[in-house]
């Protein structure tokens, strides 16, 4: 037994598992309290109070929500493809959670699961996998509204994946690395968002982030006004809960990436290294507030307008931005 424990492989796996568990739990906590925050903030924006019945200030609302979802009747429509119907909600959550494995929350090793040298690519890969949940959920429900929602989202996500990827490239050019830790280190003195092309890239990234996470004003796949609830029309109980969780986990993971890429990650003044992660979470909170704020302010775009925005505005802008950044970086390297 002792020998087994001293095997470095085993120890590595053990510690990695512990870190994964801790970070996963922490992020799930953040997710559920983001739902609470969203309802509370929305309430105050809309001249009402929001949840205030469960616990002090309604703080136990997320627990009550989840408990309610667990006890709801689970409904599987006739003619649904059962296996895929079950798998889809899981697919909604998993990619978003995987992204957390490469996010550096603080300068210490203990505050990240791993430092992957293609960390940014992993994020892009996971966000492109995320579309499956919605497409399959929509298709397997055997419902026209859900199918339309699924079709919409597949087109929408492919279209917005591109500007998103392209808006990351200026950061890669400036940092010279795909590792998120490296990228944060490069921003110790000057956040990338403070450069003109960094700012533009950040703006594009945030817009595409809204689209990738299906948040208003780009929540077309689930536009409740025309498609009832889009891809999750037929979902109930915890399966619906998983979609819900997936959306919020996505919002948080994408905000984590935005903080890392553009806002300097854990970098910030005053605090000692041990508490630098506070900066990370402050920035994260600011971005999350942005997401909520936008959602309760803007109406929804129409499908064709969304496509036009992606292909005719964001994509050329992002391409031009890459070009300009490349020239600047090259010119600087020349001295």
């Amino acid at each position: 037994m002792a020998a087994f424990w001293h095997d470095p492989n085993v120890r590595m796996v053990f510690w990695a598992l512990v870190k994964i568990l801790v970070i996963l739990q922490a992020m799930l906590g953040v997710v559920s309290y983001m739902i609470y925050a969203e309802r509370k903030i929305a309430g105050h924006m809309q001249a009402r109070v929001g949840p205030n019945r469960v616990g002090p200030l309604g703080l136990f609302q997320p627990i009550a929500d989840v408990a309610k979802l667990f006890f709801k009747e689970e409904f599987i429509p006739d003619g649904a493809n059962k296996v895929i119907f079950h798998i889809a909600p899981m697919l909604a959550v998993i990619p978003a959670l995987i992204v957390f494995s490469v996010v550096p929350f603080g300068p210490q090793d203990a505050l990240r699961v791993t430092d992957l040298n293609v960390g940014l690519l992993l994020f892009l890969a996971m966000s492109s996998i995320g579309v499956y949940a919605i497409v399959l959920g929509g298709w397997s429900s055997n419902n026209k509204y859900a199918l339309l929602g699924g079709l919409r989202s597949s087109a929408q996500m492919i279209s917005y994946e591109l500007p998103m990827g392209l808006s990351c490239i200026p950061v890669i050019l400036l940092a010279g690395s795909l590792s998120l830790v490296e990228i944060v280190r490069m921003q110790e003195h000057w956040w990338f968002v403070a450069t003109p092309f960094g700012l533009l890239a950040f703006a594009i990234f945030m817009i595409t982030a809204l689209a990738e996470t299906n948040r208003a004003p780009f929540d077309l796949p689930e536009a409740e006004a025309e498609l009832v609830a889009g891809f999750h029309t037929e979902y109930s109980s915890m399966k619906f809960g998983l979609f819900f969780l997936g959306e919020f986990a996505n919002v948080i993971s994408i905000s984590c990436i935005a903080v890392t890429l553009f806002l300097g990650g854990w970098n910030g003044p005053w605090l000692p290294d041990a508490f630098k992660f506070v900066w990370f979470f402050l920035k994260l909170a600011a971005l999350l507030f942005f997401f909520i704020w936008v959602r309760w302010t803007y109406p929804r775009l129409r499908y064709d307008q969304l496509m036009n925005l992606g292909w005719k505005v964001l994509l050329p802008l992002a391409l031009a931005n890459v070009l300009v950044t490349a020239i600047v970086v090259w010119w600087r390297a020349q001295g």
Partner: protein
Amino acid sequence: MTLALFAAFAALLVGCSLMVILHRNPVASALFLVLAFCSLAGLYLLLHAEFVAMVQVIVYAGAIMVLFLFVIMYLNLRHDVEQGIAVAVRRGAGWILGILLLAETVAFFKGRWAEGPVSAPDLAPVAGNTQAIGQVLYTRYLFPFEITSVLLLVAMVGAVVIAKGRGPGLHPAAPAADAAADAKAAAPDHAGGEA
């Protein structure tokens, strides 16, 4: 551990590939193909080709297969009908040919089986192989690289033209846009290389 992972990924790959061609439902086929691609990405990771692995997921799983699914759903395909003598004959012939091919491969390898070089000299071990690939791609393979981008452009234009096509009054926008999306999905390659 590597061996165990290899065995797992290889089994997954072969199993999923088989399901791709065996399953009657095109959606299921596509999903198994996605899984096959993901296990391929795992194999690439085992081969220390991280960049290729990620691009595999982004391009194949994230773009190409979504496009496949989009088309399958758009055409609203159900289970395939595979009946009739002609179909049965062709299936038999296909399987026999396939087994022959496999047998041939086995025969070819038999007696020449060598494990090959076990451990290769380390390639760019520090910063991952992204930078190294970029170096190679933009120096030695610059010309083919440019040709590829032209190919993508041609494919994009072609897809848009075909999809707009002669279709009697059908809306051409959606599939065209997606085809174009797919053609462009390879764009991150440029980026990664430049780093």
